[in-house]
């Protein structure tokens, strides 16, 4: 077997290529010309459309046939948002505009933090102790001995994190004690937790502390409830649960300290249902509410009322009297709170500002008010009560009123409320901010908006504290953008800039960025913003993310091309900032993202028919964005399309000027491309530019591009191209097809580009097969296509014999190259590949070769391949040949020679 293969391959070496000059003509004869139909719809587009429709149909709210709630959870978050449901059952029940505690919780935890040192006193921290020094070890042992006697430990100087850790530790111990059936211990631990609530010494942390501890209490309450429920359900009778429950209430009722007693009674109040089937929660709650008068510290007192309202919302959400009573208590607490603020040594020492004090109270007050008014009742009554309060309390309550009342109501009463606000001095920042938050939701009429603005803006400007001022601006800027033109906005920005200096930019970054974001989001015409100095100044003060944001908003909101000089230059400036932020350490993805962003901007710049200016812009852009390859690629492509645009404009007949312009375009590409890192991209762009050049009769520029391609291919190995075989082969066929329409250079030898190309050692034999096709195409009398205005080789040589010989010689060398590879495959025992290549070559001969002269080779190749290629393919090939044999006599002989066996 191997000897026959060898003998065959020896023969192979002597084969020659004979082109078939008639291939095209015959093809044309035998071919049906397909009719061209313009594509009206993009196939992908239409599909997308139908999907949307499906989704919409699915999501239509139908009261009877809603989505299956179980499967809803598996939908992606976006779809869920579209459905507009929240699966929190608590939320579902309360519907309307009641903001659940859980959503508030996070906000409170984030807002109220402290740098101060905290302290904790408790007897329950023995579980895991980090024992450090010897002295502490001794201390630790002593403590362990003491613990049974209920000794108290004092932990001072804790940071916030440490403090929270301690509380979490208590929480864990509570669970452990509970699970270990040590109920009394569990109760004791929860009493300890409650005691922590009584300490408001680090007041700025108090709201967070409240949130954490009430969570623990809630958990405790749940544990008690579930245990009693379990008692009720399993074989014990209801009486057992009742007795146990009574016991709990007796135990809690006899706690000595006031605060833990109230807290725990609230925590386990839900379980009262085990004592009485229809418990009078209202009565109990109102008693507890009254006993809260015993709490001396007003901060604690207000927060306890908040906790009570929270529990009441779970148990008796409709008991209006209770909420009204809590609210009225709140009003009465004024004296106590005011005294506390003025005389408490702790506030005096720490110089806690009145605004801070109010902001600490406001979450609790908000919640109490929300419980009262969330059904839209008592609104006017509350407003009247509030308007008669002393200024200190009025400031606090108005801010809560604004944040809890329905915005529509605020909108109606707006001027009345404003009048009240303007008499106040304290807490203006928070009040105005909340007012703004309401007003941006309801969109007042233009006239009213103007009136409001004229009243509000001066007092916003007068807010002293810079943070408060900025958080006000954050909101009111949105109002201004929605209702007024660029004049107002620019005056707002100017005022903001007056408050902020460059060196503060880092510190106030978040707020300024949010102002910018509001402007970007709500502005109808982003170009107006770009015209404002102050806006640009502010953006440049902030970090790159904001700048990116500006560009991306521009891209998103400004789909039409931009030709305004100021806008273009401003954006160029901003884009340069973004570009310059990229350095060696920037992650690849971010570079990619920045590239996309700037590309979006570049694509939008359009000076209409001022092509020179456009090119100049691209030139500038290249200078500015030289570090990001993606942008350079985009620029080259832009320039190429610019060239083609010009060509379309002159309809292919260039004047001297336009031709020069095109030379400039191609030159631009030619200069830009070498700086790219990826060599395959270089190749693609070179090819693109050469095609542009040839289409515009810039022959020499085009040729230099092609030369550059060959050089690049010579210099780099295949491993340099990260694109993979298929894409590279596609590229090669594109390149070779371009070669067909390109004339030879008069000073070089015939077909020098092609020859140079096949001199490269290709590891993909398909390239040679393609080259063979090109040789075949070259040998036709008239080529299939031309660049308009450029004579190809058919015109230059006109089928001259010398040219034909040259072609056959080139063909022969390519052929031998292929046969060599076939041989190597045989030696390497890669039968499949060998057969495939042989069949390819066989087909090539059938299409382009002179079968009369090459039948011998063809038959050999056939015999060689048919056994090892797919049987069906072989059969089909055979059928084709037989069919051809009907009308071409040279095939008849071949057909008689080749068989399936």
């Amino acid at each position, binding site marked *: 077997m191997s000897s026959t293969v060898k003998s065959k391959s020896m023969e192979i070496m002597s084969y020659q290529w004979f082109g078939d000059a008639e291939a095209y003509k015959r093809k044309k004869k035998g071919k049906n010309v397909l009719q061209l139909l313009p594509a009206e719809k993009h196939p992908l587009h239409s599909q997308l459309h139908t999907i949307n429709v499906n989704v919409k149909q699915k999501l239509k709210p139908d009261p009877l046939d809603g989505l299956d709630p179980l499967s809803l959870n598996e939908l992606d978050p976006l779809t869920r948002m579209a459905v507009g449901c929240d699966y929190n059952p608590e939320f579902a029940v309360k519907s309307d505009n009641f903001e659940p505690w859980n959503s508030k919780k996070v906000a409170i935890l984030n807002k109220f933090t402290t740098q101060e040192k905290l302290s904790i006193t408790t007897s329950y921290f023995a579980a895991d102790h980090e024992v450090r020094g010897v002295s502490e070890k001794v201390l630790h042992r002593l403590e362990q001995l003491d613990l049974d006697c209920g000794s108290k430990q004092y932990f001072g100087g804790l940071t916030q994190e440490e403090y929270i850790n301690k509380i979490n530790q208590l929480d864990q111990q509570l669970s452990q004690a509970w699970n270990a059936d040590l109920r009394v211990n569990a109760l004791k631990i929860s009493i300890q937790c409650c005691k922590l609530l009584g300490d408001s010494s680090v007041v700025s942390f108090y709201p967070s502390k409240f949130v954490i501890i009430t969570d623990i209490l809630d958990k405790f309450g749940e544990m008690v409830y579930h245990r009693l429920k379990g008692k009720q359900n399993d074989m014990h009778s209801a009486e057992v649960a009742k*007795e146990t429950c009574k016991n709990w209430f007796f135990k809690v009722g006899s706690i000595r300290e006031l605060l833990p007693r109230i807290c725990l009674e609230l925590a386990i109040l839900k379980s009262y249902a085990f004592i009485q089937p229809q418990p009078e929660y209202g009565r109990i709650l109102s008693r507890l509410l009254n006993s809260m008068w*015993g709490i001396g510290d007003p901060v604690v007192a207000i927060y306890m009322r908040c906790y009570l309202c929270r529990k009441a919302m779970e148990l008796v959400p409709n008991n209006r009297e209770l909420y009204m009573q809590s609210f009225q208590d709140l009003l009465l607490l004024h*004296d106590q709170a005011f005294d506390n603020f003025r005389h408490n040594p702790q506030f005096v020492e720490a110089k806690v500002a009145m605004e801070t004090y109010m902001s600490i109270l406001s979450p609790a007050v908000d919640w109490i008010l929300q419980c009262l008014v969330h059904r839209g009742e008592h609104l006017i009554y509350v407003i009247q009560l509030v308007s008669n309060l002393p200024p200190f309390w009025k400031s606090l309550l108005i801010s809560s009123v604004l944040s809890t009342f329905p915005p529509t109501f605020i909108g109606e009463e707006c001027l009345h409320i404003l009048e009240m606000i303007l008499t106040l001095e304290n807490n203006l920042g928070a009040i105005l901010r909340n007012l703004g938050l309401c007003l941006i939701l309801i969109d007042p009429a233009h006239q009213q908006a103007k009136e409001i603005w004229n009243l509000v803006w001066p007092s916003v400007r007068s807010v002293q504290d810079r943070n408060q001022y900025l958080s006000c601006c954050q909101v009111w800027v949105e109002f201004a953008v929605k209702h007024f033109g660029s004049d107002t906005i620019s005056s707002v920005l100017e005022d903001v800039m007056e408050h902020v200096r460059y060196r503060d930019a880092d510190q106030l970054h978040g707020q300024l960025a949010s102002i910018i974001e509001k402007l970007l989001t709500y502005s109808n015409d982003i170009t107006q913003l770009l015209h404002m100095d102050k806006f640009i100044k502010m953006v440049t003060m902030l970090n790159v993310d904001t700048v990116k944001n500006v560009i991306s908003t521009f891209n998103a909101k400004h789909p039409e091309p931009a030709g305004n000089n100021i806008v273009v230059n401003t954006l160029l400036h901003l884009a340069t900032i973004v570009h310059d932020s990229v350095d060696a350490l920037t992650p690849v993805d971010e570079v990619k993202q920045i590239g996309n962003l700037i590309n979006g901007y570049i694509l939008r710049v359009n000076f209409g028919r001022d092509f020179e200016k456009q090119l100049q812009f691209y030139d500038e852009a290249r200078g500015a964005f030289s570090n990001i390859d993606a942008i350079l690629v985009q620029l080259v492509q832009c320039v190429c399309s610019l060239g083609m645009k010009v060509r379309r404009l002159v309809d292919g007949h260039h004047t001297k000027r336009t031709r020069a312009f095109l030379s400039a375009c191609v030159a631009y590409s030619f200069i830009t491309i070498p700086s790219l890192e990826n060599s395959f991209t270089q190749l693609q762009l070179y090819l693109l530019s050469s095609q542009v050049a040839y289409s515009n009769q810039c022959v020499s520029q085009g040729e230099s591009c092609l030369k550059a391609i060959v050089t690049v291919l010579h210099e780099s190995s295949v491993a340099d191209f990260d694109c993979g075989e298929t894409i590279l082969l596609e590229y090669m066929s594109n390149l070779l097809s371009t070669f067909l329409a390109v004339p030879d250079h008069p000073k070089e030898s015939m077909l020098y580009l092609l020859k140079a190309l096949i001199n490269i050692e290709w590891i993909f034999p398909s390239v040679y097969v393609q080259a063979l096709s090109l040789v075949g195409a070259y040998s036709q009398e008239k080529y299939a296509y031309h660049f308009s205005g450029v004579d190809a080789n058919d015109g230059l040589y006109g089928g001259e014999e010398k040219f034909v010989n040259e072609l056959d010689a080139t063909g022969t060398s390519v052929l031998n190259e292929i046969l060599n590879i076939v041989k190597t495959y045989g030696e390497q025992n890669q039968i499949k590949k060998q057969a495939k290549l042989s069949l390819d070559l066989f087909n090539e001969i059938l299409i382009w070769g002179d079968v009369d002269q090459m039948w011998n080779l063809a038959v050999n190749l056939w015999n060689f391949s048919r056994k090892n290629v797919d049987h069906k393919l072989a059969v089909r090939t055979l059928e084709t040949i037989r069919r051809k044999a009907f009308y071409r006599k040279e095939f008849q002989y071949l057909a008689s020679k080749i068989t399936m066996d």
Partner: protein
Amino acid sequence: MVILLDVRLYRHSKVYSENEAIRGLVVIQSKQELKHDGIVLNMEGQVNLQLSSKTVGIFEAFYQSVKPIQLLSYQIDLVKAGRLPAGNTEIPFEFPLRVRNNRCLYETYHGVYINIQYSLKCEVKRSFLIGTTMTKTIEFMVEYSSPKDASLPKPSSPLPSDLLQPAEMKRIEFEMLSDAGSKIGFFRAHGHLDSATCPIVKPFSGELIIDKSEFPIKSVDIQLIRVETCGCAEGYAKDASEIQTIQIGDGDVCKGLPIPIFMIFPRLFCCPTLLTTNFKIEFERIFQFELLGFRLHGYCIIARTFSLNC
């Protein structure tokens, strides 16, 4: 040989009132056949009195223990002498809770010097040769039934609270005052108790308003104090002890606003006020204010006492 003896009452709370029937099971768990000389169930109720060492001296206190007063004593033979089969044996029983002679039934009470206790005692008698006699005692509570609890049958005798005159139910106003020159500075508070006569099942309630205080207040507490009096040969021995303290005001509370007074009676340690020939149990309530003076740097306590009729 492991034998478990247990007495179980059907009522989980173990609280009974007069004339009710106490029902339950005696459970005996044994792996082998059990020979016994009879199983007997005793119900007893007695008042234990003890003299305080404070009033009569240690020596006397030790010696002159007062004889317990028997309130109840019943005995039933559950099973005659014989054998019990191996495994679980449950013997149901029922007792009427009825007074003996013309004594009355007091509520269960655990105090320092006076205890009123009711118990069920089950005894499995066994002769010395087979093994020791086994006993098991459980306590049950006696309370006067409240009219609210409709599930319980109404007792024939009227409740103490029903007997009270309307005049005694009225609220009691009070005032506390201290002059400017005194140690605690100027201080004035007033308030009322809803009643000095409180039914024991209901919480004790009232209101307190602090009008003015020269120094900040640290805490407001109410204290429940019992006064027990035992009769003995040498006259009466009277002792007061604290039952529980409850804080109603924490920190410098609001002036001029009513702070509710609210206390649940700890059931085991309280009983209706009892005045008998041999012993008395009475209650007092004390308000206590802890004042923190800036100048004094110490606590001063102002207190006010009321006697209560439960």
